[in-house]
């Protein structure tokens, strides 16, 4: 789609795109190219000697058991975050769509987590689930369940999953609610006249019609779990205990900052870049085409 009426100027369009383009080149394209190049090099920690090694960094990476473990943690983490996040948000949206009184108050309260920074959300949940002080820890102890996420890897993973789901709930809820509200009322009414109860109506009408929204949110949530949860991991568990919560984005940071393994860290960046690009492609190609029954 193009405009018929356009303005003519030799220099003005370039001047208009210049700021955006300059920022893109200096802070996006150049560093990304650097990461690509860097990933083919081995450098000692002082930067004195550099050697070109082709794909050795990648070979090392995929034979490193810590890296493969981190991949696995990330996969489990993102499946849990996307699965639980979508299920809870869908349930709340379905009931919020039903009620008339107080709908606005519920909606307002449910969008609040969006405003809270991930790191702040992590600190709030750490306070609730702190091994010595936490209120929820106290409740669980009195029910006979021992909670200490600093020692127990599964509980540490649970902590970051809870925080990540909590933080993302507003987003999922708003999209599901918008999706439900765009379903034509006549369909629901026709089903009701035919004698279908609320549960039947949901599973045979609303749920299938929501599938484009659900698929879109699934991709968004996986991207979120992969890339936007660094702050949660860093503030809540710092990847511990014993790497149990060391997701990929956290590992890039850790290996670069603490281990100063620049080649390896750059190779990890390149792997992440490949993941973002493929997820973006999936998002654009399939969301357009509309998943439907």
């Amino acid at each position: 789609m193009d405009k018929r009426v356009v303005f003519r100027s030799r220099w003005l369009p370039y001047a208009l795109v210049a700021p955006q383009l300059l920022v893109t080149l200096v802070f996006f394209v150049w560093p990304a190219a650097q990461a690509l190049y860097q990933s083919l090099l081995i450098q000692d920690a002082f930067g004195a000697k550099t050697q070109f090694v082709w794909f050795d960094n990648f070979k090392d990476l995929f034979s490193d058991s810590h890296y493969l473990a981190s991949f696995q943690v990330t996969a489990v983490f993102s499946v849990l975050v996307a699965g639980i996040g979508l299920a809870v948000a869908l349930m709340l949206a379905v009931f919020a769509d039903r009620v008339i009184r107080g709908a606005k108050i519920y909606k307002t309260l449910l969008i609040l987590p969006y405003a809270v920074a991930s790191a702040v959300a992590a600190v709030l949940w750490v306070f609730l689930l702190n091994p010595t002080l936490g209120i929820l820890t106290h409740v669980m102890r009195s029910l006979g369940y021992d909670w200490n996420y600093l020692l127990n890897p599964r509980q540490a993973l649970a902590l970051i999953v809870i925080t990540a789901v909590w933080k993302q709930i507003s987003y999922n809820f708003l999209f599901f609610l918008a999706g439900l509200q765009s379903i034509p009322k006549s369909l629901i009414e026709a089903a009701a006249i035919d004698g279908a109860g609320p549960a039947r109506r949901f599973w045979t009408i609303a749920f299938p019609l929501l599938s484009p929204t659900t698929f879109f949110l699934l991709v968004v949530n996986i991207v979120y779990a992969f890339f936007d949860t660094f702050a949660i991991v860093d503030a809540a568990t710092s990847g511990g205990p014993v790497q149990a919560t060391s997701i990929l984005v956290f590992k890039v940071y850790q290996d670069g900052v603490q281990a100063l393994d620049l080649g390896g860290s750059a190779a990890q960046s390149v792997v992440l870049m490949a993941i973002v690009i493929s997820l973006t492609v999936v998002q654009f190609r399939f969301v357009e085409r509309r998943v439907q029954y």
Partner: protein
Amino acid sequence: MVERRPVGTLISHLILIAGVAIVALPLYVGFVGSTLSFDQVTTVPMQMTPGTHLLDNYAAVLSHGSKLASGAPVGVMMWNSLVMALAIAIGKIAMSMLSAFAIVYFRFPLRKTVFWMIFLTLMLPVEVRIFPTYKVVAELGLVDTYAGLTLPLIASATATFLFRQFFLTIPEELAEAARIDGAGPMRFFVDILLPLSRTSMAALFVIMFIYGWNQYLWPLLITTREDMYTVVIGIKRMVAGGDTLVEWQLVLATAMLALLPPAAVILVMQRWFVKGLVETEK
């Protein structure tokens, strides 16, 4: 709702109330914790009603932070966060509007190239290009400056697409009329496009302000001096000290201060927030 089902409505409300209660729990407990004294906040179980130390705690963190941790005043950090959030929000909106204007209303060689270059930024979040970007910023001497904090985050493909999409829906007659009346492109931009884009700008502002205020990884790397910390980083530095040393009442007061501005923006501009959220992602 299609039919009257009092029991169904009651169950709906109960489930929603339970959901809202779980969502609100960390916020409420955090708030209560920020109004207690150190002894009260470390009592197990902590009391669930607000205490009397609200003003003391907030005044303490604003002026000198948590003395057991870094002791950096949170007031300064709030200012840094505000500068960062505003610069990112306004910068993104201005830059993406100008480039969308150029892409829609001009024909020039390289137009397609420019478009794809901007599209590319979508695929390169900070988390992915973190060290090379840090190196570039360090070489430009921008560590511990506002420019270093904001510039690398300021390009926005989504905002550019949003404005492009919006400009394409503006009737051709407007540009035609403007040209016949002898208005140049910039006159058209300022007098016609800007006023028409007000809603989109408001919607994007909410999203981008929150995005900027809540940034974590980038400020963590780029700020080494305490007086350049943003408030989100400040909190992380306060809890980093190990369990016994954490002054939770002050940490929680800082957390409440950190979430107040973005929460206020969302609540006041709720209509534009929902619009912005739905539009930037579609």
